[in-house]
């Protein structure tokens, strides 16, 4: 039963490719090749939806980023092209580069914590007896399934200045000055809460899928390793780790994508505050665009954000595309 559960996790998890990685197999293909319009007709609605609803906003975003679009133009429905003005202004402002730097550090801290802790929890799951494993799984699934905004609200309450359980705990543990600490008063403390929230919600995905992957490692490999005199550490580095490496690699990049564009956690926690100091790129684009009514600027920031994200994940995208091409 537990094996089934894991398969569901994999299938229900956004972005995981295992289910697709099982192609029909090299069976004899009896279908006609080319010619018949049936497959194209079947694909038409999906393609149309993707082109119109994803392609059009992308193009629109590009077009907006070359326009001067402030409240006046917005209300009067004016289209005022201003060339690269938005881009020169964005790239020329030190605020933008501060936000870029902040976003990269924020992403790195989150992803490293998620991957390291998630791997450790996953390996722990593999070591546990059945009952303790189920218990820990239950905890993980609860954290995983918790809707983001609900989780954000709960964290605000956990870290509330007055009557928050975290401050109480810290004070009880002897750190008296934390009794009335305002977590949302400084950049570092606000980020700490946000990182904790994101890491708490993301570990289950890594841990449960990693555990599922370990169950597929052939036992013979461990036997062979122990015959060769490998200890616990050696059999980890020579059997477990190489086996999990592709999974860890792919998951790291997925986490980079997810954390980099994280929006609700940061926005609902403290709206990028205090003093706009916890704005990451998606929030920054939102505050500059719709917030301060500079839609052209916001679009330029969005576009640059997408480019940075592409740059960070280009290597992963390339391996995925290559892999798929080999497979098809």
């Amino acid at each position: 039963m537990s094996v089934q559960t894991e398969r569901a996790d994999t299938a229900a998890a956004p972005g995981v490719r295992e289910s697709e990685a099982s192609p029909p197999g090299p069976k004899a293909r009896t279908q006609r090749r080319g010619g018949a319009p049936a497959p194209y007709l079947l694909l038409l609605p999906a393609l149309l939806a993707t082109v119109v609803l994803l392609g059009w906003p992308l193009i629109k975003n590009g077009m907006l980023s070359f326009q001067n679009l402030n409240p006046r133009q917005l209300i009067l429905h004016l289209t005022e092209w201003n060339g690269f003005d938005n881009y020169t202004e964005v790239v020329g402002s030190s605020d933008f580069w501060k936000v870029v730097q902040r976003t990269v550090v924020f992403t790195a801290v989150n992803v490293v914590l998620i991957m390291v802790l998630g791997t450790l929890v996953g390996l722990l799951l593999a070591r546990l007896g059945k009952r303790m494993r189920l218990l820990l799984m239950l905890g993980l699934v609860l954290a995983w399934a918790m809707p983001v905004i609900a989780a954000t609200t709960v964290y605000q309450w956990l870290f509330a200045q007055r009557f928050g359980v975290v401050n109480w705990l810290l004070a009880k543990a002897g750190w008296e000055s934390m009794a009335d600490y305002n977590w949302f008063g400084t950049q570092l403390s606000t980020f700490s809460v946000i990182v904790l929230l994101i890491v708490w919600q993301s570990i289950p995905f890594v841990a449960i899928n990693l555990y599922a992957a370990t169950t597929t490692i052939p036992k013979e490999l461990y036997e062979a390793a122990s015959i060769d005199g490998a200890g616990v550490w050696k059999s980890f580095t020579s059997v477990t780790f190489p086996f999990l490496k592709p999974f860890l690699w792919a998951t790291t990049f997925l986490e980079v994508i997810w954390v980099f564009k994280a929006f609700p956690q940061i926005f609902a926690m403290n709206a990028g505050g205090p003093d706009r100091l916890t704005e990451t790129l998606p929030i920054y684009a939102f505050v500059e665009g719709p917030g301060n009514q500079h839609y052209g600027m916001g679009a330029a920031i969005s576009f640059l954000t997408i480019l940075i994200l592409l740059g960070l994940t280009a290597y992963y995208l390339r391996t995925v595309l290559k892999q798929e091409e080999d497979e098809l």
Partner: protein
Amino acid sequence: MKRPVSSTASRLWPNVTAAVLFVVFAFPVYWMFATSLKPTGDIIADDPVFLPTDITFDHFERAVGADHFWTLVGNSLTVTVLSVVFSLIIALLASFALARMRFKGRRGFILTFMIAQMAPWEVMVIAIYMIVRDADLLNSLVPLTVFYMIMVLPFTILTLRGYVAAVPKELEESAMVDGCTRTQAFVKVIFPLLAPGLMATSLFGFITAWNEFPLVLILNKGIEKQTLPLWLSSFQTTFGDDWGATMAAASLFAVPILVLFVFLQRKAVSGLTSGAVKG
């Protein structure tokens, strides 16, 4: 070689760690429910009450009694269910073609959907806002439904494709030998076997649409067309430090997802593995 001295300890520490981790992961969820059921006196206590003995539903009454609550529930349900159903229908057609047919450009289609799956919707909201505004559809549920549909569509297609491919071809072929047309074979043979796949993908779609925040934040400023995530995120501001009501609101919002997750996750796998294709 194992060191016998530490064997008890080495058997104990994983279990102790697991127990501690269970508390770490489950506590916030527990605390949400616990707070929502405690009388206010226990919530604003100098020492937190960890095991509520006095159960009250006052907070839930206040949360449910908030302005427009039922309108927002209706909006959230409408948008979520419709977008999931539409994406399932479109994805079924597409995934069947991708899993079962050979044709030119098939690889290109799959790659397109794989890339579409990673679209950073969070940073595209400004463009979507302008498009929706130009179409005069601000403060409407239609754009939300349509864009939630496309947010989950690529994942639905790619996942369903795996499930369709997993249904043995022989089943379909023997139905066709018995005189079914291809469409009939699909409806009568493949479709019932896809139930687990449909559940798995609709679970994902449901979670995505139910949780979506940035798009509705920018598109629908009018309260009567908003959805629950917006309501919940503004609840604390509206109700001040009424943590009991806020946690009750959070619980109301989270329960459908928690229930679906636990329930559908089991169901989603039972069908495929229960031996529809024995012998």
